[in-house]
């Protein structure tokens, strides 16, 4: 707008300055109204955003969990599995036939389905897209999974099994 060519007739020169100040006032008003509008909208949007984000924030405090105690889980028979929640996400505790205790994340690293331990085949299988993991190390063996399952530390005691972040 400012680089428009202004044609001024003779004797109209003083008006130029007036027009300019009017233009400035107008611009200032529009900028102030725009800023007020943005602030107003933000004041409405903020509580709505926080309201809708509440569960996410609650989950955030739950994922901060670093260890879970599974009461009486030491009684888990050989060759069987116990599903539990580590924070908010599914995890599995496997008592292998050779007596080893293994705890892993049960969330497939491909697209997030919950995986299953198959004792006969001695593997961890994801039914969604056929991913297969090693039930001792969590390593991705075949199928689409790009990464191994996360392994947890396990401590077995008289009272239960304690699973913690490795």
């Amino acid at each position, binding site marked *: 707008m400012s680089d428009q060519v202004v044609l001024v007739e003779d004797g109209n020169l003083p008006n130029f300055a007036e027009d300019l100040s009017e233009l400035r006032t107008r611009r200032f008003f529009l900028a102030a109204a725009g800023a007020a509008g943005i602030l107003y909208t933000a004041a409405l949007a903020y*509580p709505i955003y926080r*309201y809708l984000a509440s569960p996410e924030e609650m989950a955030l405090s739950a994922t901060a969990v670093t260890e879970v105690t599974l009461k009486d889980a030491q009684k888990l028979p050989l060759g069987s599995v116990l599903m539990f929640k580590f924070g908010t996400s599914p995890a599995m505790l496997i008592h292998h036939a050779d007596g080893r205790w293994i705890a892993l994340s049960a969330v497939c690293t491909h697209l997030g389905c919950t995986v299953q331990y198959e004792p006969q085949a001695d593997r961890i299988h994801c039914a969604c897209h056929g991913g297969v993991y090693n039930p001792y190390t969590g390593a991705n063996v075949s199928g689409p999974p790009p990464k191994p399952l996360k392994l947890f530390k396990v401590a077995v005691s008289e009272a239960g099994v304690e699973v913690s972040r490795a």
Partner: protein
Amino acid sequence: MTTKSLTTSVYDWVDERLGLSELAAFARHKTVPVHAQSFWYYWGGISLFLFLVQCFTGVLLLVYYRPGAEAYESVRQITFVMHFGWLIRSAHAWSANLMIFSILVHMFSVYFMKAYRKPREFGWLSGMALLGIASVFGFSGYLLPMDELSYFATKVGLEIPAAIPVIGPAIANMLRGGPEVGEFTVQRFFALHVVVLPAIFLPLLGFHLWLVQRYGNAAPPSEEAKPAADRKSIPFMPNFIRKDLAMWLISLNVLALLASVFPWTLGRQADSLVPAPAGIHPEWYFMSPFEMLKLLGNVLPGESGEIAGLLLFTLGIGLWILIPFYDIDKPSGQHARAAHYFGLLAVFALLATTAIGYWTIR
């Protein structure tokens, strides 16, 4: 291509298919009369705005609300656990009250301006139906938190259909989902409140608004009597819509202020074994009929009073709804005056019984 020519070509593309310029031309020719009573024209728009607020905050509440046995717990969670949940709930409750209020103002302004006369009879009838549905919205929504007050309000409110001779009890049981107000009642009131009522309300509202587009704002008879040259009007676009939107903004500010400064409370969980709290009373918009029934009960005790009350209400509301067919524009003006006095009587009766109602709580 510059931004401007891009905008024009997009507009032209859409216009060719949807006929936007016809709509714009229609909007340009629409005018709104300007006179001493023009202020009342805003109240229909305010009601519409508050309805939109209801839809919006209602959907937000729906995100966490759980009907049935967990109803109270979920509302407690919304109010005390979720961030700003108290504000959303408070805005929904306040906006509901303000909406009923503005619909009432709108109705009485239409009544006294005689805006129900030919050709606007359907506008009046659909408006009355919308008010009726709005009060059912209010009644059903009131139960959803399942606290003490909602429990007793619903219990008492359902005694009204129960008083209808012969079929009354069956109707009340059907609404209640059994002989007692409980989780089944909440569940079906919930379905009513968020599915059935909106499904009836929205098309009716569309019809109501379409009629306003078709016939425009009615001017009061005193204005109609003036010669055309003396009558003033402003274009709807953009002059009136600008003022209308300013009123919406004011309404939103009033609502925000009320909702945040006077947050809606949540009472104790409903329990049929706990006696009704002292001073319990209906919401202000149900106070008048409640008090009328009470007063009538003093004159005619027992069931006969209840039935007489119902008959009287039905008669009064019936006359009110049918006013366009009684008060037709006639030179003698006799019916017009009678309708005017009937309106004044209705306003007086509403205000007086409401005042008595609040007076006698103490």
